[in-house]
């Protein structure tokens, strides 16, 4: 098998435009791949995720999944997305927030209720099922979001700096939960992060987004050991 055969997500000469800012990309991601998206603030990392998830339509080129263009409706794309904040609805309990992953219109069968319990158990939150987001810690809220992703079983997972507000120990814990979920579902994952350590822990490859362009994924260790100029500027040369 050649590498081309394994690839599942394609961005073909894509251009995303948000107000005056535009981002170009031309790359593909392999099936089951774990890719970190790194680069300076305001250079388009989040724009890239919005484009892949369908909130932003490309002004040029196309985004393909498994050789086919994806639906225009973000909810019908084969993906789940986790933002930095506001992933949970504050007036719904943890269990109800997770349940949205099974039925976004909030009616569950008895079997589905059991699935929700199981998902909460898998992220270690079975005791907090009835708690509301305001009573959960940042780490626990992150777990609720991950439990929902686990239930949705979509083959692509997008993460927009979901753990950046957490302390180092909690962050590692969340990365472990994420790792477990990815192993369970075999999903492909793209994660925006500011933390080079997180990137190395989580990903095999990295996409550098700088100067309005998303570069092709590169093997992450070789990228950091021999950084191109744009990356040098971002991480600093004294490391």
């Amino acid at each position, binding site marked *: 098998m050649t590498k081309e055969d394994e690839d599942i997500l394609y961005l073909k000469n894509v251009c995303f435009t948000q107000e005056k800012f535009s981002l170009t990309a031309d790359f593909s991601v392999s099936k089951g791949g774990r890719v970190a998206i790194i680069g300076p603030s305001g250079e388009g990392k989040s724009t890239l995720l919005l484009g892949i998830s369908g909130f932003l339509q490309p002004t040029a080129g196309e985004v393909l999944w498994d050789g086919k263009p994806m639906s225009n409706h973000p909810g019908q794309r084969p993906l789940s997305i986790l*933002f930095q904040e506001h992933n949970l609805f504050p007036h*719904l309990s943890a269990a109800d927030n997770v349940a949205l992953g099974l039925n976004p219109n909030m009616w569950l069968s008895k079997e589905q209720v059991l699935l929700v319990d199981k998902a909460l158990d898998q992220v270690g939150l079975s005791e907090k099922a009835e708690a509301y987001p305001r009573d959960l810690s940042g780490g626990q809220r992150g777990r609720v979001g991950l439990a929902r992703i686990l239930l949705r079983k979509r083959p692509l997972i997008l993460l927009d700096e979901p753990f950046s507000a957490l302390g180092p120990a909690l962050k590692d814990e969340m990365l472990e939960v994420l790792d477990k979920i990815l192993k369970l579902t075999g999903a492909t994952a793209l994660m925006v992060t500011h933390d080079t350590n997180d990137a190395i822990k989580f990903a095999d490859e990295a996409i550098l987004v700088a100067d309005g362009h998303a570069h092709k994924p590169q093997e992450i260790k070789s990228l950091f050991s021999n950084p191109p100029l744009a990356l040098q500027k971002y991480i600093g040369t004294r490391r």
Partner: protein
Amino acid sequence: MADSVIAITLRLILSGAVIFALLIFSFGTAAAVASKGDGFGTLVLADFSAIRFTIWQALVSAILSVCLAIPVSRALWRQSFFGRRALITLLGAPFILPVLVGVLGLLAVFGRSGWISELLLFFGLGRISIYGAFGVILAHVFFNLPLATRLLLQGWSAVPGERFRVADSLGSNSWAKFLLIEWPMLRGAIPGAFVLIFLLCLTSFTVALAVGGGPKGTTIELAIYQAFRFDFDLGKAASLATVQFGICVTVAFLACVVPLPKLGGIGLDRLVLQFDAWKHRKLDLIWISGAAVFLILPLAAILFRGLGNILTLPGQVLTASITSLLIALISTAVCICLALVLSLSLAYSRLNTQKIAEGISILGLSTSPLVVGTGLFLMIFPFVHPASLAIPVTAFVNAMMAMPFVLRVLMPAVREIYNDYLHLRLSLNMGRGVWLMRIVFPRLRRPIGFSVGLVAALSMGDFGVIALFSDPELQTLPLMLYRLMGAYRMDQAAAVAVVLVAQSLFLFWIFDQGGRRHSIS
């Protein structure tokens, strides 16, 4: 704090004095009124129907304003179109628009010889009449729909964009999205907006005076005025004023339970990226244009009619304009000085200044200008002829009535400066004079400019207490407008309205701009 005992005492005395003045202003005048009342036994059937009408019209006006504001605010928030920003700014205008001017505009559109009546006649149908309950409610919706829309727009804008993206990426349908996002927001925002508008309509006097009246359109405020002006029955006026005060205090207690919305205006024109906004575009644009036409048409009618007639106005308009300016400037100076003294002297205290500002707001909103006017009249009547004090009394009452709005702007601004920079001041050992002149006042420039403009415009257009105190000799722009309307000289009335609006807007603009210039934030 490194401050001397003298400074602390001084601050206590100053803030206490201002709060005391505010309490005397609302409760003191009410007490003066109550002591002169003839008791509720003198109230006749007509008075009870006035009480019923007052509550009913306020309820209907508030329900209509809020219900209409829901689709309008949602449309404004999710659609982008040419003139969106201008329209959102325009929504703030009715707040400083003199009530009589708004009513005159509504008469030109909805009145017996207004545009709609002419149109109906053209199709062989009858004229519509604006006088009575319909007119009172129409005018209240005209003034409060924009306010409600702004308040709900604040609510929509405060919903994080991620929340919509989460719902969309999960594939929620419209009903689920309503339950997940829109309903929780509305449930939080509607009660406050409703109570605020209900209070404003309960104490509204000018609208009832201009288009109300008769057995089915008299509010308590209007009944007080009539008992006072036409019958000079002070006892009855006092009894009615006591009832009005009682109702307002009851609603004010309600307002304590329901948090009143903030009257800020930040971030209102932020547009959230919503991928499916186009689906609702047609219906949304209908709501937006409907609201815009309802708002703009009456104003355009006045401008259209008034501009051509300005030169026909008698020379009195100059005197009236100067008197109005004088009243506006005096009340602005009084209001801002008191508000600054209160905000600055409370800045160090550990008291919850937000609670104090809210308490004063509720007090001010539930204070009826007619009750206050009656009270002041009764207080000074034994000593001097009240008409000779019409100008200072009006200026003072206007200052006090505008105080809640000003405190809501100034108190948080002052608090923020003290929170951010007080430690820096102490560590630099900066003296009080330098601190106030070089740090506090320059940083307050913008909120002060905005507040001064607001009070000046509100006071310029106010027509409440002055109606009670004035004699035929006295000329102000709102009085002149009212007299011309009463004489059905609508062309000249429209011309005076144009002068009044121009003068109010100019005052607001000049002070607001003055605050913006050289301000570095």
